[in-house]
Every structure is written in C-alpha cells, then in structure tokens.
C-alpha cells in the first residue's frame, strides 16, 4: 500500500503547489484543501488517477454484484 503523503512545493515565483500521493478517492482533495486554506487562495486544481480510483472500484463492485444476482 502506498504511503499517504502530501508534497508542498513553493516556487521561486511565490506560488505553492500541493500534491497528494497515496490518498485515494475524494479524501485526497479534502486533505489538499486543508493545506491550501492555511496558505492562501486556490487558483487551479487537477484531479488525477487516485482521486477516481476508489469510486471506480466501487462502481465495478456494484456491476459485478448485479450480474451475479441477476
């Protein structure tokens, strides 16, 4: 299991980039926003693989269950 981690990068231009790693599902956004609120104002966001991974697993499980039960 991946270690849950947040990486905070403060650029030379004074911007802050917050990246979550190993946190699956919408919780990763909650964690990132927690840090963002400490720092300032969110300018943009990108939701990638792991954000959707938990919901995809749940959807597959639901489909598999329906198939088995008819």
């Amino acid at each position, binding site marked *: 299991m991946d*270690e*849950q*981690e*947040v*990486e*905070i*990068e*403060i*650029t*030379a*231009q*004074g*911007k*802050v*980039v*917050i*990246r*979550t*790693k*190993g*946190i*699956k599902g919408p919780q*990763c*956004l909650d*964690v*990132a*926003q*927690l*840090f*963002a609120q*400490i*720092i*300032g*104002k*969110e*300018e*943009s*966001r*990108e*939701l*990638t*693989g*792991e*954000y959707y*991974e938990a919901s995809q697993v749940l959807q597959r499980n639901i489909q598999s269950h329906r198939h088995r039960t008819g």
Partner: protein
Amino acid sequence: MSTVLIVAPIVVASWPVITAAVTAAIGTLGFTLARAELNASVSQQSQTKTSNREVIEVEESEILAGATGVAQQLVVERDGVRATFSRDARGALKLCVEGSHLSKSQLRAVGEELIGAVTQQYAYHRIMTELKERNLTVVDEEMTTERSVKIRVRNF
C-alpha cells in the same frame, strides 16, 4: 498522484515578519540591505534624479499596522538598482524599483523576481509554523535546481 492544487499565498503579516522574509530572500538574488527609512523623504529625493521607476503592489497582502515610529520601509540595492518595500495607504505591501540604467520593463522584471522570492520565504515560514503547530511530520525538505522548495509531509 491524486490531487494537485495551485495556491497563491495571501501575505498577512506584521512588518517585522516582512522584514525577515525580505532579508532571507535578497541574499539569493544578490541584493543587500540599504537602510530602513522612518519616512519617505529619501525615496522622494531619489525621484528627482533621472531614473526609471516601477511600482508593484502585492494585491493579496495585508501588512498589520505597527507601533508609531517603527520603520515600515525597507531598501535593498544591487548594481545601481534600488528597491524599496513599504506599506501603502491601504495596508498592502508595495515595492518601488528604481534604476537609471534599466528600462521600465526590466525594472518590473527585477521587482517581480524580488516579490516572488519574498513571497516564497513568507510562505515557507507560514507553512512550517503551521505544520509544527499541528504536529505533522516533515519527512523531507529539498531545494530544487529551479530554486523551488519542496516539503514532504505525513501523518495528517
């Protein structure tokens, strides 16, 4: 990686905190401290000389009002360029960059580089203070070749 947020820091600080951020930032850019001014008289004198001037206001900023008589102006210099940090009438951080041998656009570029470095120092201090107060574990810190600072955090 699951989420990436880009955040613009909001600088809310007292003048001593700003001074500390400026002092930490200028070394990497080759600037040196001139002197803190109690009033704007010296800055006004420099305006009568033939020199270009650019003013940059940091919109997302608030410098807390200090005690009367405490200097709220900081001057740094490099290669004939003079940059003055001050608190404007609205309480925001302002930077005035002057130099006789640089164009306005060049002065603006110097000013934006300075503002970026000061903001970086302020944000770093703010983040590290909050991480410590919340008992979060900083597992690693590094300075990249692009002069970014990366902090890795666990146990949140």
